[in-house]
């Protein structure tokens, strides 16, 4: 037996625990979820047998499900845009404009380590006019701050703001890492050629950040598809159903309506949706990186 074969065998053996863990904790639940989505299982009524694609056809006719996709997209697209813009601006500011403020990185990271439920409770109190110090402050000057959580788009904006506050540090950290990978020689050369700081940012820094921006936007987009604690604590899906994103709707179907199989079908939809988006973003990233 050659050394190479021995090496390969021990390599495979060492890899086996990780492979098993992935199979047990990721693949099997996923297979189970797919399997459930083709059945009719209700927590109260029990097992109703296999129903093929019935749950997926039902999704196409379900107005609440379609409305939940709109909510999900508003929360996700809005959240990703704000998080990426804010995280990038702060990263560029700390790295390029005021590097002596690097100590601020630690402060900016604080919201990222706050548990999601605590984030939701903090912002719930800030957006509840009778509890909010912001409202109390503006009341002194006779200014009434609107109640965000009681209007359709206000509630969506409130969740986007809370999510942006909690998640922009993730973007900031990744963009900081990407910025440190860009040679300062490029900036210096452009500066010698007479480029202003804005021109350097738009023409050199930003194009070089594109792959990192694309990947961080993808990470955040997939994360925002999983919005739950903010909705659960801040709005309960309200007002009306204005903040019932798709995964929250899956929760309602599974736990409140007891339709486990239908909830699984919604989860399958979300999985496929995220997978397709990831595929196209990864392809775009490869194209940009290769260019």
């Amino acid at each position: 037996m050659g050394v190479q074969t021995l090496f390969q065998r021990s390599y495979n053996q060492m890899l086996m625990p990780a492979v098993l863990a992935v199979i047990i904790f990721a693949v099997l639940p996923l297979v189970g979820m797919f399997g459930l989505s083709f059945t009719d299982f209700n927590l109260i009524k029990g097992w109703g047998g296999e129903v093929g694609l019935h749950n997926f056809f039902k999704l196409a006719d379900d107005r609440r499900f379609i409305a939940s996709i709109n909510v999900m997209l508003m929360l996700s697209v809005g959240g990703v845009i704000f998080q990426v813009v804010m995280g990038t601006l702060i990263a560029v500011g700390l790295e390029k404009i005021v590097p002596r403020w690097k100590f601020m990185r630690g402060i900016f990271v604080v919201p990222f380590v706050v548990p999601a439920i605590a984030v939701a409770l903090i912002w719930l109190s800030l957006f509840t006019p009778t509890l909010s110090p912001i409202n109390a402050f503006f009341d002194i000057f006779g200014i009434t701050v609107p109640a965000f959580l009681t209007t359709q788009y206000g509630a969506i904006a409130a969740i986007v703001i809370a999510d942006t506050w909690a998640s922009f540090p993730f973007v900031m950290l990744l963009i900081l890492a990407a910025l440190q990978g860009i040679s300062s020689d490029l900036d210096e050369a452009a500066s010698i050629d007479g480029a202003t700081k804005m021109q350097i940012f738009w023409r050199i820094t930003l194009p070089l950040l594109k792959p990192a921006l694309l990947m961080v936007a993808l990470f955040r987009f997939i994360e925002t598809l999983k919005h739950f604690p903010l909705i659960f604590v801040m709005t309960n899906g309200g007002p009306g159903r204005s903040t019932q994103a798709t995964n929250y709707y899956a929760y309602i179907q599974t736990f409140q309506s007891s339709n486990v199989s239908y909830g699984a079908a919604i989860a399958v939809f979300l999985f496929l949706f995220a997978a397709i988006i990831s595929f196209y973003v990864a392809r775009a990233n490869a194209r940009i990186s290769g260019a």
Partner: protein
Amino acid sequence: MKPSMLKNATLGAGLAMSVALPTVAVADEINVVLFAMPYTQGLAKLEADFEAATGHTANIEVIGQDVFENRITLSFTGQTGDVDVVHTPVIQVQRWIEAGWLRPITAEVDGMATKDDILAGPLDAYLVNGDRWALPFFAETGMMAYRTDLLAAAGYDAPPATWDEMLEVAAAVKTDQVGALAMRVAPGQGFNMFVFPMIMRAYGGAFFTDYSGGDLTPNMNTPEALAGLEVYSQLMNDYGPEGIGNFNFGEVAASIQSGQVAMIVDGTSIAARALDPEQSQFADQISIAAVPSGPAGRSPAIAVHGLGIPADAPNPEASFAFIEWATSAETLTKIALSEPYPDFIRASVAENPEVVAKYEGIHPDFLNLKVEMLGDAIGHYRPLLPQWPEIGQIVGENINAAVNEIMSNEDALAQSDADIADIMSE
């Protein structure tokens, strides 16, 4: 002994121990899962009393209501057997029975020496299909709490007796600084659907054509229900505090305790909190009154909570020992004295001089008013159907959308009828 035999014997012994050990532990330890309210919080402080009384130990876990429902659903469906006693709201009991999640306790309850001391209404709320499924510990009803000083300043010596009068008083009391009335508006069967039926039923509205007669045709899209919803929407939007459209019971309680509203209509436990000088900044200026009535009379909210035994509980005798202790006159009296808990369900507790002194001290009419409201309440205030949690959720969303002006009142009721029909047809 061959090594393989030794290995098998060791494994077998280990397996036997792993099976045997939990059985021994379960025999002495009772795992109790409850959701937060004054009674359950008071009960959690009395674990040592249970051990002294029975020799068993109890692990009492008190969690938020939403979290509770998910936690318990997972436990029931997974048949984990990790819960010995479960908080059993009457509104969920039909659903849990249909799913086979509860164990009947008919013989145990009927064998209790002190059964007749329990008020018949709450006790019989758990009598379904001829069996008893839980013992009640709490029977809450609707009540109004109001600021006497703010109403007097607006020219009113008495609180509004009807919902129409409420509109008039609210218009006079509301200022830029203080809202007139706070009620729950957040969507959910235990949230806005705990309070909205008080107004809807007062105007003659109903969920079904003839619930008592068995005609479960959805019937919310009626002029009567519309009149109720219009009053509710107007009261909240025109005279409620800022942000009322997302208020739940916590915000309702806080708003009157901190002086941000002049009146609330909610459950008796929230009214008791408003009157508690330790929790309420304006307790000495707060009084209580009956839930307003309407053209069809008065319909105070009612909520009954009890303790049941999950079907998969491994030691039902010990579970029932806990329930019997937790709902005994002695335990209820202790909690009634230590917490804002006026919703006890034993006649002897209501006659206890210390308890009477405490609640008369908070307000002389408190206990009498509570009894009056319980007398006016109907048992099926929220329909006692297995489908109710789902109906309550979806109708609650529609009503919340109407109050927040995302849907018209008419559309919300029409949509509710359609949604109820869908649920009932499944």
